């Protein structure tokens, strides 16, 4: 400021260097863990984790994690949890695959991929709305309400499979990507230019010296879109301010005219949307579905959100941190494919340890921001 009227209270804040500011950002912890994992995996797998196919496979799972963790993080910033994400994935996958195989309900004829998706999305958005409404109207903790939906939706999914399909999985659907632009959009490939370029530069070769990989899974694009929109909304829009305010101090937000109930209900619908996108990309990519899909994904999503710097108590979080968290979790979950001697259960050991460390780190961040209260 040009006008300096002597020493004031605000002068007592210590000036920080750019580097200090960077280190103290909420996503710095997630970033360092990610870098360590990338280097470790690079060495442990002799580079295989990041060759043309390794990269594609890693990004596939990273994008899956990223999509649902973005939804979970937004909701947590507003002060609520959603434990129904995993079951919602299973439900949405069942709904789409079932319509693709058996046609639209009530004898409306064959389902196009778009119709199957649209009808499913209507149902999942309604479920998200229902969950949100129950939470805000009853004042019950979202933990218990969404736990109920975790069981309820998984059960409905299994029952529906057995009743209509006689089996809890559907495989061998026709490859809709060949006939439907919509299926291609969700289950096809994207960023082919990246692998073309890699090939032109002399890499990305298979054994016969031809181009090996032709593109990333489409869910990579959807993850970038969802994370990008979430970042924009949180940092740049009125809605973002409302989301932070709702999670930080609900009564203060309400006293200032923020429609906290509508914000929360909207975010429960957003997590349902993210779960539906997760399921749609999977169904149209593999042309299969089964009743166990999405199992435990709600807990992965919450863990990633926390590791990315989202506070369990709401009011604070970073989409960039969630991106780093998703990359880290995806790489570790996949590591077993690139490091043959590695026991896959190390993934859960890792998640537990990192989660605990992250909770402590986040608590320090919260104390620092709130001046130690």
């Amino acid at each position, binding site marked *: *400021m040009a*006008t*300096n*009227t002597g020493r*004031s*209270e*605000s002068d007592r*804040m210590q000036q920080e260097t750019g580097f200090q500011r960077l280190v103290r950002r909420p996503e710095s912890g997630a970033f360092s863990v990610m870098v360590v994992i990338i280097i470790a995996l690079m060495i442990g797998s002799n580079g295989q984790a990041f060759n043309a196919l390794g990269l594609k496979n890693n990004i596939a799972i990273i994008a899956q994690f990223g999509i649902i963790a973005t939804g979970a993080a937004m909701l947590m910033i507003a002060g609520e949890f959603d434990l129904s994400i995993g079951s919602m994935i299973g439900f949405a996958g069942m709904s789409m695959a079932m319509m693709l195989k058996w046609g639209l309900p009530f004898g409306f004829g064959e389902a196009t991929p778009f119709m199957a998706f649209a009808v499913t999305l209507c149902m999942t958005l309604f479920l998200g709305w229902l969950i949100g409404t129950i939470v805000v109207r009853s004042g019950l903790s979202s933990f218990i309400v969404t736990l109920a939906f975790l069981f309820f939706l998984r059960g409905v999914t299994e029952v529906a499979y057995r009743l209509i399909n006689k089996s809890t999985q559907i495989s061998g659907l026709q490859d809709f990507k060949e006939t439907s632009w919509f299926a291609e959009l969700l289950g096809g490939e994207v960023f082919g230019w990246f692998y073309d370029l890699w090939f032109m530069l002399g890499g990305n070769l298979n054994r016969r010296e031809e181009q090996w990989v032709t593109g990333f899974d489409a869910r990579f694009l959807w993850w970038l879109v969802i994370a990008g929109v979430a970042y924009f909304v949180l940092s*740049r*829009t*009125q*809605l*973002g*301010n*409302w989301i*932070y*305010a709702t999670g*930080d*101090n609900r*009564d*203060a*937000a309400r*006293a*200032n*005219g*923020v429609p906290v109930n509508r914000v929360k209900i909207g975010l429960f619908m957003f997590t349902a949307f993210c779960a539906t996108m997760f399921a749609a990309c999977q169904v149209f990519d593999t042309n299969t579905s089964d009743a166990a899909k999405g199992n435990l994904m709600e807990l992965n999503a919450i863990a990633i959100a926390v590791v990315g710097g989202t*506070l369990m108590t709401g*009011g*604070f979080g970073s989409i960039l941190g969630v991106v780093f968290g998703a990359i880290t979790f995806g790489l570790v979950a996949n590591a077993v494919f690139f490091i043959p001697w590695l026991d896959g259960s190390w993934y859960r050991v890792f998640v537990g340890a990192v989660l605990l460390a992250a909770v402590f780190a986040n608590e320090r961040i*919260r104390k620092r*921001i*709130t*001046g130690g*209260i």
Partner: protein
Amino acid sequence: MAMPLIHIENIVKKFGPFIALNGVSLDVRAGEVHALLGDNGAGKSTLIKVLAGVHQPTSGKIFIEGKEMHFRSPRDASDAGIGTVYQDLAINPLMSVTRNFFMGRELKGPFGTLRMDEMNQIAHDEMLKIGIDFSDPTQAVGTMSGGQRQTLAIARAIYFGAKVLILDEPTSALGQKQQMGVLKTMMRVRARGDIAIIFITHNEIHSQLVADRFTFLALGEVIGSGSKDDLEHDEIRRLMAGGVDIGDLAKEIDQVMAEASV
């Protein structure tokens, strides 16, 4: 004398059988600080909640600039120009100064985007007007002192159109120096001349430093009122104690001490 900005008449508020306010009347003029004093439980907070639209009065009338008002919600009251700064301030500690300042009333550009630069500038300027030069409005409110938070809440209420500013015990949770800061802030608001301030406190010294008029509540009723010049210092202390003479109190205390030393 000018018409009072806010005039309240015979406000009664019952919570079931409990009479929290029993016919309270009060006038506040623009450019005036009106201290509302009384012991804990006297009904001060209940009165301001009625004025702020949080509670509906059982009976009684509220006039703003001569027009009778019926507040059905806090929104109604704030639309009518009543800005209330509660004890808990309605502030979000994790959010920045600017985001708090505009919470619920953000300045929007296309697609619901925030006009962040403009909002930062306004938050800075409005707070400077009443006494804090906050160089970094992107700083989290959690890092501010209690007095600064108080100033933020006051600046916000004024910027969003408060004609009647109600401050509920703004100095009670603060240290000495910050208390004076808040009193100075109040005097700057008073100096604008267009805002009526209702200052709730149970600190007689603070009220004497800034108030033009006083109203004393005890057990839900007004037990005395008057302007600064009308009231003697001892009278204020007597009314503060709920109408009991300080001399009597001193005697009672002596008596207890005598009994204790036996």
